[in-house]
């Protein structure tokens, strides 16, 4: 999967830290001159996450000349954040990260405007995301990345030659770190593989089989998870376990110690207990600083390649390289490892043309008579989707929203109408559905792009003449 670029030699060590292969964006990038003046005003960047990476990203983007930034984060500041989230002080503990981060950067860099959003990414409507030119990610979970990826890719549309339409491409720059290790990558929907296309890159999430926990533990982590997932419910039936309650954590720790003693397993400490139960990611400032800076450079390169079109869209000079009929692409996937002095690998990945997320949309064929209500229930059974309680929007217009109650009431009357009519009687178009999917016994928010095709429609009006909806 990755190509090693280390060539040991007798007299010297040559490692390469490759940020990008250079054929992703045209040669218009001019580093050292900062962002062109005209771009500063209208390139809007969204930073997702105001934690270790987010704080660094906001600082770097602001110092690099971006003027219009927004940041979203649902968390409040904790003491353990302070070792790397340098925008926060001890007296800020408890306050929303996004708000404090925005304030501090604006205090230090004149001319930048940062709008904070304290809340979940899933709670924002698609419309919110559509105004950004580039989305920079400083996230710490696969689920969150998956969601934002689906959002960015949902804007993507293809023309009749199967090429991505430039003005619908919303690039993402994704950074991730853990300890000494980190990665930075660029996702250009439609051209590079999206996050979902390459989800196999991430190591499988650790999940212990129940029988191991219950019968045959071998490691300290098994003992801890036994106490946390099994014993807790046995003893405290009904009462939810709160990882932020030190009493609960101590209880789990004590039980884990008992179990470890029973099986002769060493290594259960309070620190490990916290780490396993809360899924703590070890983190240091310097890795975050490097990865965020790499992401900022990528963001600058993308922005510098932009040109303003008449319609005020930012067009990106995306030039896919055709290779044996396949669309192949060099993803600038930077992997950094500070501990080993081994830096970098740039890897070539191929976009999955059947990708549910960055492809042209999951095909759903319908009769023109199908109601919106029937459509929503069909999504639950569709083998590729299995999307529950979906809310539907078409070209920015909410057709039916499951929540909040106000919107539900307003759109309820659409349920009995034919989807074909609601969509303006066109033979096919893209529709967005947000709902819940169940993955490994967990319910997660999910956004899917659907390509709805009506059977037996007149075919007179088609996508290109549908007009703005």
């Amino acid at each position, binding site marked *: 999967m990755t190509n090693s670029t280390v060539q040991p030699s007798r*007299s*010297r*060590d*040559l*490692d*390469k*830290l*490759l*940020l990008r292969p*250079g054929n992703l964006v045209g040669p218009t*990038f001019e*580093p*050292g*001159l*900062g962002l062109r003046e005209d771009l500063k005003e209208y390139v809007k960047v969204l930073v997702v996450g105001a934690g270790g990476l987010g704080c*660094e990203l906001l*600082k*770097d983007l602001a*110092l*690099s000349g971006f003027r219009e930034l927004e940041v979203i984060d649902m968390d409040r500041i904790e*003491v*353990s954040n*302070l*070792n*790397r989230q*340098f925008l926060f*002080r*001890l007296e800020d503990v408890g306050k929303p990260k996004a708000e404090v981060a925005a304030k501090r950067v604006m*205090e*230090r*860099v*004149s001319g930048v405007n940062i709008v904070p959003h304290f809340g979940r990414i899933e709670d924002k409507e698609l419309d919110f995301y559509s105004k950004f030119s580039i989305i920079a990610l400083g996230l710490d979970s696969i689920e969150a990345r998956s969601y934002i990826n689906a959002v960015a890719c949902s804007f993507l549309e293809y023309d009749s030659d199967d090429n991505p339409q430039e003005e619908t491409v919303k690039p993402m720059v994704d950074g991730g770190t853990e*300890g*000494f290790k980190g990665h930075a990558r660029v996702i250009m929907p439609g051209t590079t593989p999206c996050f979902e296309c390459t989800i196999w890159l991430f190591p499988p999430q650790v999940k212990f089989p129940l029988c191991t926990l219950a019968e045959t533990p071998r490691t300290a982590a098994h003992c801890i998870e036994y106490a946390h997932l099994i014993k807790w419910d046995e003893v405290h039936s009904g009462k939810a376990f709160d990882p932020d309650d030190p009493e609960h954590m101590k209880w789990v720790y004590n039980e884990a110690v008992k179990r470890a003693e029973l099986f002769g397993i060493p290594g259960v400490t309070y*620190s490990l207990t916290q*780490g396993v139960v809360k899924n*703590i*990611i*070890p*983190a*240091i*400032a*310097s*890795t*975050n*600083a*490097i990865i*965020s*800076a*790499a992401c*900022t*450079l990528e963001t*600058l390169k993308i922005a510098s390649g932009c040109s303003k079109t008449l319609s005020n869209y930012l067009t990106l000079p995306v030039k896919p390289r055709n290779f044996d009929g396949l669309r192949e692409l060099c993803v*600038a996937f930077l992997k950094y490892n*500070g*501990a*080993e*002095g081994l*830096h*970098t690998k740039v890897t070539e990945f191929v976009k999955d043309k059947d990708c549910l997320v960055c492809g042209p949309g999951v095909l759903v064929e319908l009769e023109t008579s199908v109601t919106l209500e029937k459509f929503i229930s069909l999504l639950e059974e569709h083998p590729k989707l299995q999307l529950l309680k979906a809310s539907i929007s078409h070209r920015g217009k909410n057709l039916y929203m499951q929540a909040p109650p106000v919107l539900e009431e307003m759109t309820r009357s659409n349920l009995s109408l034919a989807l074909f009519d609601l969509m303006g009687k066109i033979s096919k178009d893209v529709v967005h559905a947000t709902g819940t999917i169940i993955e490994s016994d967990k319910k997660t928010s999910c956004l899917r792009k659907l390509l709805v095709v009506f059977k037996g429609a007149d075919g007179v009006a088609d996508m290109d003449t549908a007009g703005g909806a």
Partner: protein
Amino acid sequence: MDGEELTEQETALYDRQIRVWGADAQRRLSKAHILVYGLKGTVAEFCKNIVLAGVGSLTLVDDREVSEEALSANFLIPPDENVYAGKTLAELSCDSLKDFNPMVRVSVEKGDLSSFNVEFFSKFDVVVVSCSSLATKKLVNEKCRKLPKRVAFYTVDCKDSCGEIFVDLQVHRYSKKKNDETVECELQYSSFEEAISVPWRTLPRKTSKVYFAMRVLERFEEAEGRKPGEVSIEDLSGVLKLKKELFVSMNESHIPDSLLERLVTNAREFPPVCAIIGGILGQEVIKAISGKGDPLKNFFFFDATDGKGIIEDI
């Protein structure tokens, strides 16, 4: 901070990084004393990283006043003139850095680094020098080497979108895990003067061009009696002439004129490059103090135009 064990406060604050490098390394960090000279953007980034890491103390030396250049790349300097007027870069940076981690003693030392005596440097475990002349770098490095205890010496400079780090750990012993075994390692480092004295014609062809470019500029500044970084586009022809002279024993000129032109025209730092170099330097100093991880030997170069980071052993 001065006792043997980490305090409860330290354990809470440093939890996430203790999970990375262990309590032992954290204790060593908390006893380390760092000296830094030349507070531009890259060094500011480095300072942020090691203050957050929880070193014992950080001493800043830079008597220069605030300039537009400083405001554009140094996050530690507040943009309000009412606040920064009359204060030096070191003083302003000190105030900001204290905020990042109240447990680190951050202080300012005034004066000309090259005039400090050997005894002064004995107070420190790590010395980082930036924005300095060739002469100062050599002099400070030698003073560090004269001391009975090991004082790690680093230089760091960024110009345009390039950066250079030099590392001198003298003799560095450390252990690392290799296939479940603990292996003892030892590295021997050259001084800055020794390293740059290596004749260019003996260096491999693929040696980073940034190395040569930095040396040409250093020599130019020395020959013309300039302050570090005090070159501009008018000097380009002089710089190129010097380059030709320095490369005279080699058949081809190893560095493109365009690289020198970039570094001469825009001696200013580029913020994301400051963060990358400052981050890597932070990591290196942590490795040197904690004795964990393979340290860089002995030069690191970065150029954002090709995105390459290269380690050279010269």
